[in-house]
């Protein structure tokens, strides 16, 4: 178990992390989501011991680790660019930690071959032992890098944007692979990513980082369904966020009064998920907001429609499993509607103040 408390780090005048506290449990898949510049790489480097925090402490199983090198923290890091040793074969790369570590090195060739072999088997690269690392593909490099770290049996494995450099196809396969490998070994993975889909799909728990702050820690479905602050909703890239204010039991936005969930009298922001909104003709009785159609994007299983509302772009996602895509022309006047229970409202500080209990956090 790793406990971070009140970690802070600045580079010159730029504050990278401010007062970050969180606990990393044993045997869990943790994802860390943050837009670029949110301090997620800095946090990873602090945990790993590659940088020193300005303030705060990092306890691994109750022991303070500030100043300790990574391997003595029981940590392993899989770097974003894989950092494979270019002059070595796959075998030599994977065995590096076992053979050359300062403490308790493994020099028995049979033992090395057995452990490296078992690890390559786990990551699906058996038979690649004698390949040079320049002769293998990006996805294979990723696996070698993972195997090199995991073979040293760390308690926690930190993965810095592990899928960032892979193409979409490989990315999907590696997503499953990473989960399978983690389940097999029972090691904690802390997976850092800037991609919200990846963070939602992979994690048992998810941390959302924004401007150096931890803004939410919860299981992915809870974060997706009920972002506790407006910034989380923005980072997820799944919510239309409308500005305005509460008035007469409704939310005034662009001259319209939108329905409010219970008990949200001081609302300043109103969020509605892309897939909770519906496009209707302008004169439809249920119409809540008048919009102008801009364009649409086919995503395979669905279509994302982009419309101009009173406060910027309004997006609606429509899944195609139940219906054919509707076709609109650019500039066409439409309206959007949604169930009042799907709306989330935030106060002026961006804190969640109202939501329907019906929706819950599954």
């Amino acid at each position, binding site marked *: 178990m790793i406990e971070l408390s009140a970690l802070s780090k600045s580079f010159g005048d730029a504050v990278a992390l401010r007062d970050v506290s969180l606990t990393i449990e044993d045997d869990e898949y943790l994802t860390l989501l943050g837009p670029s510049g949110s301090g997620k790489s800095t946090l990873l480097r602090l945990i790993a011991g590659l940088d020193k925090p300005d303030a705060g402490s990092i306890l691994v199983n109750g022991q303070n680790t500030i100043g300790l*090198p990574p391997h003595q923290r029981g940590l*392993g890091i899989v770097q974003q*660019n894989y950092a494979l040793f*270019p002059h070595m074969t796959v075998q030599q790369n994977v065995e590096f930690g076992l053979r*050359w*570590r300062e403490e308790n090195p493994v020099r028995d060739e049979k033992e090395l071959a057995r452990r490296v072999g078992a690890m390559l088997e786990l990551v699906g690269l058996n038979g690649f032992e004698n390949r040079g690392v320049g002769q293998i593909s990006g996805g294979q490099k990723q696996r070698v890098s993972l195997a090199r770290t995991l073979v*040293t049996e760390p308690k926690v494995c930190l993965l810095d944007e592990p899928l960032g450099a892979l193409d979409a196809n490989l990315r999907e396969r590696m997503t499953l692979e990473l989960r399978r490998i983690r389940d097999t070994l029972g090691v904690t993975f802390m997976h850092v990513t800037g991609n919200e889909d990846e963070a939602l799909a992979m994690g048992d728990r998810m941390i959302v980082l924004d401007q150096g702050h931890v803004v939410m820690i919860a299981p992915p479905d809870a974060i997706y369904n009920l972002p506790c602050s407006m910034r989380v909703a923005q980072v997820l890239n799944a919510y239309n966020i409308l500005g305005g204010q509460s008035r007469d039991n409704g939310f005034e936005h662009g001259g319209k009064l939108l329905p409010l969930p219970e008990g949200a009298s001081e609302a300043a922001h109103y969020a509605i998920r892309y897939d909770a909104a519906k496009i209707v003709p302008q004169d439809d009785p249920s119409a809540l907001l008048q919009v102008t159609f801009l364009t649409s994007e086919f995503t395979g299983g669905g279509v994302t429609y982009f419309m101009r509302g009173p406060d910027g772009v309004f997006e609606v996602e429509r899944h195609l499993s139940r219906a054919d895509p509707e076709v609109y022309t650019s500039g066409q006047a439409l309206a959007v509607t949604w169930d009042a229970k799907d709306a989330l409202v935030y106060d002026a500080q961006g804190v969640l103040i109202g939501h329907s209990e019906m929706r819950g956090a599954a």
Partner: protein
Amino acid sequence: MSTETIQSNPGFFTRNKHYWLLVPGVVWMTLFLVVPLGMMVYVSFWTQTTFAISNDLTLKSWQTFFASETYFGALIRTIRIWLTVLFLTILIGYPAALFIGQMVRNKTTQTILLVACVIPFWTSFLIRVLAWRPMLGKEGAINILLQKLGLIDAPIEVLLFTELAVIIGMVQIYVVFMVGPIAFMLARIDQSLIEAARDLGASGWTIFRKIILPLSLPGVVVGAIFVSVMVLGEFATSSALSGRKVNLLGNIIVTQVGSLKWAFAAVIGVVLTAVMALVVTILLRIVDLRKEL
């Protein structure tokens, strides 16, 4: 193949247009490298008499070279001095390069330090060589300083006009050619590799031995080629700092050409070229430069 048939088979010259890019270089190198090199080999078999040379082919000059203590000794001496200078330039150059390439993380500072290494080249080669005389001489700066400090009673005489002086001079002049390529290779090593190795538990010494050294080896080889080629062909430093006592192959060529012994000078030229070719080949065997560059 299929595209060529579709394009109604353009002429030979049209298809190989891009080879015209090579013409100036090839012409230049043929006239001023290949032809003279062949000429040198040819002349080494000519018959040399005291005042004339004729193109009757003979092995006499070659026999003289390998039979003579003086000439064959010069070959051995050249190789010995070359190996000593090479060893010392690596010994002195590698740590300096390690500092510039790995310890200094700021690119601007790196460039400034590398440029600083080249500053001695702003003075002419001969002045740099001759400047060692007032440094190393019997009443030179080093002896005066050591005597003033009371470290020695009598001046050290082996400092100048000896093989030691030649080695000191050559190391100083050529060490920068070792520092440059090594620092360049070291600066190219991705810091994440070193972080990864440290993260895997390797000590600083292991990281140097297993990661930094092998990855900088191409730089060492390139530096060694520079230094070797220059030292093997040297004559100015050895004659200026040894008082003509240390004769390298280069010095003998100068003397022989001076007394118009063309055939014999050619023999030494061929030997020197062969030694250089051998040295470069061996050095290139150490690392696969094709893979690195």
